[in-house]
């Protein structure tokens, strides 16, 4: 018997009924875009508005933060015991993990649909086809991030500890990539960090999609690498996940 669809449905519903999760996936990015967009108004010339730049930055940042959703959906205090009870049934441990990753990704994508729609309505430029290409990129990153979250939570065996580690890592990535402000003018080291930050690479591809007619190789590479990373992280999570550590 394949319990995976049942598990995915349950996990997705568990997230939908939590107001905090909904705020985190929709209200938080919109609020950040609004605040940073206002603060950086007038920084850009020509067809580029501060809203466009900030929106791309924060959508990518939010995709990377999807990991918090999978760590919470797995080991959040009120969910941990019933989630692990699933293993008393004839359910494969891999399915338990896969369900968390897929449900978290689905939930995050639901949030992104709402955020993209609101940004489109507000006239923010998200690229062709109402931002569909950018959405594909964000979706792949989100899946990789949820899988990473699962791996880390299996390693740390604690949701808050895993979130701390992940938020720190993603925060560093975001700062070096200039999500909140550019660090290039802080000296040559900072400039080098910014230049080689994976976040800068992601943002460049997103900008090309929106304003320069796209970067097919970069786009496919991003999606391909994200999916490969997701599979690798899930594999690592399965190897790391020892049921005896959680009972």
């Amino acid at each position, binding site marked *: *018997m394949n*319990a995976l669809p*049942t*598990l995915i449905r*349950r996990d997705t519903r*568990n997230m939908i*009924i939590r107001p905090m999760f909904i705020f985190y996936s929709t209200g938080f990015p919109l609020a950040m875009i609004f605040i940073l967009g206002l603060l950086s108004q007038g920084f850009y010339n020509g067809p580029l508005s501060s809203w466009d730049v900030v929106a791309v930055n924060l959508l990518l940042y939010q995709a990377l933060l999807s990991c918090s959703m999978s760590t919470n959906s797995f080991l959040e205090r*009120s*969910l941990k*015991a*019933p989630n*692990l*009870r*699933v*293993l*008393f*049934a*004839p*359910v*494969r441990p891999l399915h338990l993990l896969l369900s968390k990753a897929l449900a978290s990704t689905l939930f995050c994508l639901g949030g992104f649909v709402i955020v993209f729609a609101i940004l489109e309505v507000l006239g923010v430029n998200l690229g062709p086809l109402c931002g569909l290409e950018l959405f594909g990129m964000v979706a792949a990153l989100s899946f990789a991030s949820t899988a990473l979250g699962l791996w880390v939570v299996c390693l740390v065996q604690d949701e808050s500890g895993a979130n701390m580690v992940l938020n720190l890592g993603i925060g560093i990535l975001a700062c070096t990539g200039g999500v909140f402000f550019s660090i290039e003018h802080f000296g040559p080291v900072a400039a080098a960090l910014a230049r080689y930050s994976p976040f800068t690479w992601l943002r460049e591809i997103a900008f090309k999609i929106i304003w320069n007619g796209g970067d097919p190789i970069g786009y496919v590479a991003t999606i391909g690498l994200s999916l490969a990373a997701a599979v690798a992280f899930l594999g690592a999570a399965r190897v790391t996940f020892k*049921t*005896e550590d959680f*009972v």
Partner: protein
Amino acid sequence: MSDILTVENFCKSFKTGVAVDHLSFSIPKGSVFCLLGPNGAGKSTTIAMLASLMPRDEGKVFFDGAEVRGRPARYLSSLGIVPQELALYGNLSAKANLEFFASLYGLRGATRAHRVAEALDFAGLADRANEPVDHFSGGMKRRLNIGCALCHKPRLMIMDEPTVGIDPQSRNFILDSIRRLRDEGTTVIYTSHYMEEVEEIGDDILIMDHGKTLAEGTLEELKSKVGDLRHYRLELDAEVPGLDEAFYRVNGMKRVAAHGSVFDLESLPAIDNVDAIIKTASGSGRRIVAFSSVESGLEQVFLTLTGRSLRD
């Protein structure tokens, strides 16, 4: 009666030490098998290994005569496991919890609805089926925790201390429900450190400590292990170091166990030594707070086997 489950030579060690040490037992079909031991005796580790959640260092499990390796679906489908910790989705209703856990065993449609209704009845929660579990009392949650393990009609129920922290009414409800399960032909493994519960429901009892079997048998068989010694409990108003040595000098005294200011004494029945016991206690200079003759039970069995109280 044939055995539904046989455990041979279970061993499990952690970095902190040996948790289960060459444990073996067999459980006849349709019986209530109790694992009794103090906290840290290795009961939950044994359960985790039986549930295929924890690999064993050594040992074998046979279910219905067939060896269990890994996590075979047929074996897991035959088990209903009630964990010590409440494992329920608090913001879902009782019914939704039961439906979800029943689905994991492949139950669908009308069959699932029927089994969920049965489990709600069994747990005495039919009239609260649609209420969120977070609104329930501790006892109701415990009952639902059992109900979630029942929907798929397991042949072997494994209950890990299901009465921890609940009111006497819910505790009685749970003990009654275990008797009902046995009457319906379900085999039950019940772990506890409450002797009274085990005495009440256990057909076979295995007393364990430090991962090892201390004794196994029916309540009567276990009681016979302590012989027909007389058991007394004496309490002073304060601890008296060395008084246990003085009690040993009383004629007929076979065993003395001191727990602070409380002494458990075992004496030969043919010798009338109550006066001597009282005199020895009074001679310590402390006041006697209580003195009673204790009926032979599992507490005495444990005391005789280990020299300490199960509650220590």
